[in-house]
């Protein structure tokens, strides 16, 4: 659940960008970082290897200011996509209010997409979370590549979107679909504010 502190009038949402290596998760955050007014963005923290692969995770805090009297903050994380960073992915995924699964639209990357999506569901299950209860949006990145290299949205939906969640074609480098994805996952997360509070909170 998004953290809503009514007493201090704060809303904090954690959104995790999940997906296979080199699918464009960090590009999403970098694009958002560039678009956010300086006053509202925290420093984007990125622990990357020399090859520009995410080693641990990226973290981008966003201060959306006062919304309906609530100081609203978003925390955007990416997980390292490489297979061997499994434990780090689980760590970053903890407490996520919403997940963006960034798939690589290239045909030859489909197996990696499927493997990563399976890994996401396993990670959620390991944490005792019903994946169906977590707001999820799929982003089909690299749609700007030549058509013979990539799959279109209907084909990607057929292979990855078995839950019928919102999906967006994107070109994260150019910014196409980046905010659309963020807007949709944020909406799904925030809609849960009015959901009944689980016992024990």
């Amino acid at each position: 659940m998004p953290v809503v502190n009514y007493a201090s009038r704060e809303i904090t949402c954690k959104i995790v960008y999940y997906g296979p290596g080199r699918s464009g998760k960090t590009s999403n955050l970098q694009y958002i970082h560039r678009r956010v007014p300086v006053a509202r963005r925290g420093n984007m923290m990125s622990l990357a290897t020399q090859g520009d692969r995410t080693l641990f995770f990226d973290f981008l805090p966003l201060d959306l200011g006062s919304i309906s009297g609530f100081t609203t903050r978003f925390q955007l994380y990416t997980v390292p996509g490489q297979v061997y960073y499994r434990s780090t992915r689980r760590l970053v995924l903890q407490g996520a209010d919403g997940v963006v699964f960034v798939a690589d639209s290239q045909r030859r990357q489909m197996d990696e997409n499927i493997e990563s999506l399976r890994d996401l569901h396993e990670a959620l299950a390991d944490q005792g979370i019903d994946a169906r209860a977590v707001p999820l949006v799929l982003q089909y990145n690299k749609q700007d590549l030549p058509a013979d290299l990539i799959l279109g949205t209907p084909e990607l939906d057929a292979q990855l979107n078995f839950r019928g969640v919102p999906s967006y074609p994107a070109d994260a480098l150019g910014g196409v679909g980046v905010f659309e994805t963020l807007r949709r996952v944020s909406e799904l997360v925030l809609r849960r504010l009015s959901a009944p509070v689980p016992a024990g909170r």
Partner: protein
Amino acid sequence: MPDSRFRFETFVVGPSNRLAVSAARAVAEAPGKVYNPLFVYGESGLGKTHLLSAIGLAAATVDPALTVEYRSADEYVEQWQAAVDAGDAAAFRRQWEDVRLLLLDDVQFLANRTDTQSELLRLINTLQVAGRQVVMASDRPPAELDGLDQRLLTRMSGGLIVDIAPPEFETRAGILRALEADRGVAVGEAALEELARAPIANVRELHGLFNRLLAQHSLSREAQPDGVARAVVARAREERAAPPDEFEAFVSEVAAVVSSSVEQWRVRLAATVARWAGEGFRTGLLDRHLDAPDAPDLDALEARFASTVNRLRDLEREAARLDPRVAGVSAFRDPERVDEAETILQRALAAYDPPPAASPHFTIENLAPGVRNQLALRAAGEVIALPATRYNPLYLHGPSGAGKTHLAHAIANALAARDGASWTIACLDCSAFSEDLIDALRAGALERWRLRYRAVDALVIDNVDRLAGNDRSQDEVFYLFDALRESGRQIVLTAGVPPARLRAVAPRLVSRFESGLVVEIGLVSDAEAVARHTPVPDGAEAAAPTIDAWFDEAVDDSREAASYIEPTATGDSFFLDPEKVITEWPSIDGRLVEEPR
């Protein structure tokens, strides 16, 4: 008339527009025969106008006698209004009814133009009935057009609806090649492909990029065209990626979702929490409701909380006046700890104006134990050892001079000194208690008076039979009694008679006095007074009961017998009349004459 530049030959066909072009060709070849009307939609700059013109030009080529009219909806509206204003509506209609191929662009601009919509509806009906072709274009499908007459929408949807999507890579590359050929320049396939990867939303932007490429390349002839193209695309990405309001649009949307998702009662309660927290009060009572699934009665909750806060403020003000050290104690800031705050004030009051204490001269050790007071002494020992646990209240009764006052004060002194505890003990005669109350009433300080007595750890009132007829004092003793006993404080009372024989004392008090241990204390005989100086071996007294002990047993037996007799409704039972049944035998100490035999 259609723009002569926009022909099918110059329209680059790709997956994104193939269906639209195919339908357009079919319509151009046989107007009115297929797809009537044809509705083409797509975002601006994707070639809708080009396609409409191409239909008109191609149809005119097939049948030069064909009357073709191309208009944007804006122009049609203007012309119709002008005709109406000039009184030429009929001529206008005739002119349009002669048209055999109507090409109407940007029909989204017909929104809310009721008159024009009606006229257009009539025209389309007329044309279709006459087998004339109608082709329309819009930036969105009919179903998404707002402000249009439903009948007109139905007509628009009655033929074929096709869309033109943004061009994909191949189409973009094709468009660029066509442009290259049209301009008579050669920038090379690599540069064109590079350009085709640019993030464009429509064909016009692609034309702009191509023009930019040519311009940049003309400035630096030695540069490779594909390198220039990469730079142009990078610039385009940068420009396109920087719509200034992208983040603000995101924030606006989040704001809309939050305002519709957060329940208003929680917002109001949160404001109340923030207010009281800001004033330094703990808000746990309110916080719990914030996390609850259902809305509480907000008005009542807020009123209760405010009232409790005011009570805490009063308590703190009074306590701080008596003892400045207690000001700011956390209990005065927590509405869940009002009891604790009251206790702090009571203690402050007790320390500031302590209730009457016991006379220090009376001690247990000074009391002569004997058969007539041994039970009372044993009960006193229990009370001192375990106050407020077994015998509460301890009610001592006996005749004047039996030592009740001595024992009561002795208990008070022992409790005060118990384990070195700094207990506050109120020990006073019932008359003094009543006088103190009257003084407090006169001074308007009743609340302080009550708090002072309620702060004590033990209350000892001597001669409670003096409450007789004093209703006001009885009321206060009643409330004080309950308050002390509920909070685990010891109460010791003395009287000349047992509770049941207290005269003019409210039954509710009598029953309370009887609820602990009622024990009699008798007069100590001279012999016993002397005997206390005579060592008696342990257990000797119990082993050889004195005449007093026999008396006691007899009295107990008679009381027990009396307890089995139900009092009559009038209450004048023979057996309950103390004048008729001797339950209290007079002491015969000193009056017994032994006859020497």
